[in-house]
Structure formats: structure tokens, C-alpha cells
């Protein structure tokens, strides 16, 4: 299999601290409101406690990216060497089609530049031999970079509950699901 980089989101380790999301802002000094990486709390139908389990998501660098397919000006490309989906912002005309079409909400509209933008997987950092800013910042090692060509964790899932199943796109993110502790509730109030 060809090299395909992606994120491994370990929801069992993730503490929802938003460090990854803020590290992304720190790296790119984004305008307020522009979010490349968001930390999504799992709804209570999936994890029965409010805001206690999370998926940290950015671009999934899909095998068949919807953004790339639908972009009328061909502003997206998929790097052959590692499968990173790159948005070439200078070509973007701000039509919003990628934003509408990505099921994972990865591309965002930048109201100042009037163009779309999204997670670049820090390809410049990768090319310089560094981890992506979000991965480097994760205090619990819950967000890591994987190469699907060599990644072989049998426990990993591609479409856990809370992450839309889009098989045709084949997103490159893999997950480990959050777990619940044994919970001993107070007797006097329950």
C-alpha cells in the first residue's frame, strides 16, 4: 500500500483539553473564528456523560477527498508521497463547495480572506522532520500521526459512533473508542 498519513485519535486517552486545537492556532496564528482542528464532545447517546469523551478532528486526508473532487478550480491536491490533502489557498475562489461537501466539516470559510482553508497536516513541519503542531502538543499522546501503509492496530476503528460513516471517501483517521470507568454512585441521593 502507498504511504498515507493520517491521525490516530485515541479517545480512551483524550482528555478533551483542547491543547491540540489551540496549538494549531498558535502555529498558524489564525484569525479568531477560524478553526482547523476542533475537539468534539461525544453526545450523551454515545458516551453517557456530558463532555467527558471527545474526538479531536481536523482534516481526515481522505483517500477520495470530497473537497478535492468538488473543487471547481482544482485548488486541492493530494500529495503523492504521503497522501496529504493540500488546499492551495491562492487558487481558491471562495465558492464554498468544499465546505458544503466535506461530511466532516474540515474546510472552513475564512471571512477575512474570503477563501476556504483547512488543516494542512503541517506538511511544512513534516517536511522539516517535525510532528504536526497538534500531535506534538498533545499532553497525553492521544493524538498521533500514523501511516496507514504500516499501521496495523487490530483494535483501531475507522468509523466509531459519532464519526459519520463515509466509506467511499475512505478517511485516513483511525480511532480507539473511549471507555467508561466503573462508577460507584452515592447511595444517599440516588
Amino acid at each position, binding site marked *: 500500500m502507498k504511504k498515507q498519513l493520517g491521525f490516530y485519535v485515541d479517545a480512551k486517552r483524550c482528555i478533551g483539553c483542547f491543547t491540540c486545537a489551540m496549538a494549531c492556532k498558535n502555529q*498558524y*496564528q*489564525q484569525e*479568531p473564528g477560524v478553526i482547523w482542528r476542533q475537539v468534539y464532545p461525544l453526545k450523551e447517546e454515545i458516551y453517557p456523560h456530558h463532555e467527558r469523551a471527545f474526538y479531536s478532528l481536523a482534516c481526515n486526508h481522505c483517500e477520495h477527498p470530497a473537497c478535492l473532487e468538488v473543487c471547481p478550480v482544482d485548488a486541492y491536491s493530494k500529495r503523492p508521497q504521503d497522501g496529504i490533502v493540500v488546499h492551495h*489557498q*491562492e487558487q481558491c475562489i471562495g465558492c464554498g463547495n468544499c465546505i458544503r461537501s466535506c461530511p466532516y466539516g474540515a474546510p472552513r470559510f*475564512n471571512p477575512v*480572506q474570503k477563501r476556504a482553508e483547512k488543516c494542512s497536516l503541517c506538511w511544512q513541519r513534516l517536511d522539516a522532520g517535525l510532528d504536526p503542531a497538534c500531535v506534538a502538543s498533545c499532553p497525553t499522546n492521544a493524538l498521533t500521526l500514523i501511516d496507514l501503509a504500516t499501521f496495523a492496530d487490530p483494535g483501531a476503528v475507522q468509523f466509531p459512533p459519532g464519526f459519520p460513516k463515509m466509506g467511499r471517501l475512505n478517511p485516513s483517521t483511525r480511532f480507539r473508542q473511549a471507555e467508561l470507568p466503573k462508577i460507584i454512585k452515592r447511595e444517599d441521593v440516588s
Partner: protein
Amino acid sequence: MDWNAILIALRDFFSARDGRAMVAACAVMTATGKTPPDRASGLPQAADELEYAFNRLFVGPGVVVAPPYASVYLDPDCRLMGESTRRAAAVYDALGLSSSFDEELPYDHLALELDAVLAFRVLGAQDQSAELDALWHYFLHDHLACWLPLFTAKVMQAPAPLHPEISRAIAFLSAWLAAAIKDLPQESLPMTHQPGGTAA
């Protein structure tokens, strides 16, 4: 209109540290701008009111309505000491000028930029260099004209009614910009700002 005098007064107004200096700058604008001095200014109390209003809009210590720094409007991340601050300083440097304030007054503070405008005007009158023209064109069209309208719009959106002196200063600022743009050959109209791309 004696724009040099107006620009000096505007510069002094926006760099004023107290109400008295603000009133003095306003008086110059009144005298030069040929608008009738329709209100008594210069009274200490009036100076105080002007100073409070000025600080609410431009200085602080609270969240200011219209920060008078180019980078807040031009840099995509609305911060101080951004790329446009750097560009403003580079323009001064190209003119052989530097600010003695360093970080105490970020280089793209309105007062410093108006001071640079004055330098351009005087130098331009002495020296018909194409390079100077080009630099001026850049500073006016690609810098000042991109942020001053956004800045004045912010001032006009202030929640409280504008102090008349501030409103007049803003009017002079807008009028100067309009006149300056008209004076320049219309090669490229000031475009909506397109800040440099992010890392993508």
C-alpha cells in the same frame, strides 16, 4: 485646504497623551479646516470629556472600540505587531526614518503613519524621484487606504454618540484620504485587502 497643517494636527491629535493636547490639535484643525468653530473648546471640563471619550475609543484601559493600529485591520489575525506593522516600519526605514518609540508605540500606530505621510509630502515636493512615487503609491494605496476606512468605520460604530471633536477629526482623516487618493494616478484602486496566505 492646507493638508500639511491638517495632517500635523491629526498626528498630534492621535498621539495626544492628554485632553489639553487633544484640544490644541482640534483648535488647529478648526483654524485650518475652515469649518466654523461651532463649539467652545479649550475649557478644562471640555478637555476632560474629550480625553475620556478619546481613551474609550483608542487607548483603554478597557477594550477599545477602534484600536489605532494598522495591523488590527490588515493582519488576518487582528493583533498588534503583525506583518503590517513590519511593513510600516520598513517604509519608514526606506525613507531613512525610524521611530524612537520602539515597542512603546507599535510602528503602525496611526500617529506614526500620519507622520510618515508628512515626510512623503515634503520629500515629494523636493524630489521628483520615481522610486519615491512608487513607495508613496504603495504606502497610500496598499496600506493606508486599506485600513483607514475600516478604522473610521469602527469609530463610527461606537456604541455611545461620538464626541464632536473626534467626529470632526475622523471626518478630516477621511477627507484627506479621499483627496490623496484622487491626487494619485488611478493605476490600481485600493482593493479589498487580501492578506497573505496562511501556511496552507
